[in-house]
């Protein structure tokens, strides 16, 4: 084991990178370029806290989630789980990691097996991973169902008999079944009806307290992120451009990209006055990211040095870091 530094964090990512090869040719294929989906990001998640990742599509937030779930192998960098590097660990530790890091996905219609009863869906992870008796499994399924606000009789039903919000509750129960340390929430409410979203968000917050679990929330709705998260990372083209406590970030966005995102977010009242920073164009291809600061071609405050020099990460106030030449 190379690194065993315990910072108290549940999970820490250090300089994480994921580059996908772009190949040409069918039989004799050769790599013509690399898509730098995630390009050197670092963050840590403390026990019982929620880290939000925001950014436009293609910024690398889903790839980051996949790496945390061990669905993608990082090209470079390390993921430290409770202080130990998971890429260096043995099969047993990896197995434990996989049960400690769970996920809830966006679409509760496709993430539950339609042929399994709710009882079996929720029990499946426990039967595979834990050495407990049938009656214990049964007991825990009932406890989990009541924790997520469903009734014991729901255990005998199939997923199609539930509404979207209820299905998302099932997905949450399933994710909680192994007492995980971290749950990756990938757009957990965006597929639900408006009147149901608040129910699920409140449920997630309550369960976080009860189970002392950390969340990593991926969402594009900025107000949802503010409500759910303690910390927020703003990603652009595979890099974190700003990282701060949620309140700090929303009250005092520093990076021009964060400012533009905030101004593009929809207001909560018709009289809300918003800065109008409408970004021109779209996110450039991660195949050829711009030189210097990756945001400079769209940045309303770009200077000459932005196209040449990569900005350093600067701490502008305690816990609030940004990478921009303005600071």
């Amino acid at each position, binding site marked *: 084991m190379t690194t065993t530094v315990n910072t108290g964090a549940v999970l820490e990512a250090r300089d994480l990178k994921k580059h996908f090869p772009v190949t040409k040719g069918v039989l004799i294929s050769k790599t013509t370029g690399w898509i730098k989906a995630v390009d050197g990001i670092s963050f840590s998640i403390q026990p019982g806290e929620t880290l939000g990742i925001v950014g*436009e599509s293609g910024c690398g937030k889903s790839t980051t989630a996949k790496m945390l779930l061990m669905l993608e192998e990082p090209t470079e960098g390390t993921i430290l789980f409770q202080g130990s590097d998971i890429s260096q660990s043995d099969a047993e530790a990896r197995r434990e990691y996989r049960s400690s890091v769970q996920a809830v996905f966006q679409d509760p219609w496709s993430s539950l097996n339609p042929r399994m009863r709710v009882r079996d869906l929720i029990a499946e992870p426990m039967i595979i991973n834990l050495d407990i008796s049938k009656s214990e499994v049964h007991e825990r399924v009932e406890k989990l169902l009541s924790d997520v606000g469903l009734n014991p009789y729901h255990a005998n039903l199939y997923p199609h008999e539930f509404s979207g919000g209820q299905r998302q509750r099932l997905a949450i129960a399933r994710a909680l079944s192994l007492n995980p340390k971290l749950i990756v929430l990938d757009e957990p409410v965006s597929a639900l009806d408006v009147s149901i979203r608040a129910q699920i968000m409140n449920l997630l917050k309550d369960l976080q307290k009860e189970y002392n679990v950390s969340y990593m929330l991926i969402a594009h709705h900025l*107000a949802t992120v503010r409500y759910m998260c303690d910390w927020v990372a703003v990603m652009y083209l595979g890099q974190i451009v700003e990282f701060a406590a949620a309140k700090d970030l929303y009250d005092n966005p520093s990076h021009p990209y964060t400012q533009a995102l905030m101004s593009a977010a929809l207001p909560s009242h018709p009289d809300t006055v918003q800065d109008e920073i*409408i970004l021109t164009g779209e996110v450039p291809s991660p195949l050829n990211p711009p030189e210097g600061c990756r945001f400079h071609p769209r940045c309303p405050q770009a200077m000459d040095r932005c196209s040449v020099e990569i900005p350093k990460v600067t701490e502008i106030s305690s816990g609030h870091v940004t990478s921009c030449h303005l600071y």
Partner: protein
Amino acid sequence: MINESSRQGDKVLEVNNLSTYFQTRWGTVKAVDGVSFDLSRGETLGIVGESGSGKSVTMLSLMQLVPTPPGRIVDGEIILDGQDLLQLNDDQMSKVRGSQIALIIQDPMTSLNPVFSIGNQVMEAVKIHQDIPKKSILDRALDVLRKVNIPAAETRIRDYPHQMSGGMRQRVVGAISISCQPSVLIADEPTTSLDVTIQAQYLKLLKELQVEQDLGLIFITHDFGVVAKMCDKVAVMYAGKIVEQGSVRDIFNNPSHPYTEALLASVPKLEEDVDRLYSIEGQPPTLHDLPQGCPFAPRCAYVMDRCREDYPTTIQVNDTHSAACWRLS
């Protein structure tokens, strides 16, 4: 009828008591049940509701695209520019649809045909609806593509949908819908599949087009943010009926129906920290099995005995603001 519309001056669209029912094996589903609203030139109306509230069927009824059977418009009037659309036959309606009243649907990925170039698809609408010489059709197509800010429209016009990004495709859909200078444009959740920055660009574009062409714009949405940003007035739908209607400030400052009030309270805010969101318990009702009385009663915080018996009458809160709730009577 013609007298009435000329009396109302700049009203471009008037919908009275529109009802669209579907025959299903569970019985009659009243997807839209006695909906009335109007729209003036240059005005934006937001129709807000959850899935199953009837907002999309309202939109399909306006365009007369309700699948028949099982659906049928059973009652009402849709008066566009002084003409009742429900009195028209299919041929006459095809002339109106796309030229006087146009539609932008939710998903730009599926609303364009992948095997035709975008130029072809923009020109198709112009060819069908406008009697202009062949040579100028291309100019017209280029013109609308420039209007929706497609860069290098001359070369992009030969592109196929897959060569464009989501935001760009949605703008092409917008170009098609304005190509015949409609008087009413319906946008059904036009930005849900777009990123926030692209969404802001698109909403700004719609606003500009509206001002330029004096369009009556109808936004079908579930997002109060879109309403706050874009709309002049709002109709809130629940279980096939409009439960509250008013100017955008009436709705946000003084929501009078408990459903509107609860919905507004359950949305997290960007500008402030909220300790705990209000959450509406229960599920939206299924339309073939509506409770007696007010359909919101089982989820309502202010429910009274009367609510479970009779559907509330619509009560005027002020000149422009009305709500259907017994609490107001």
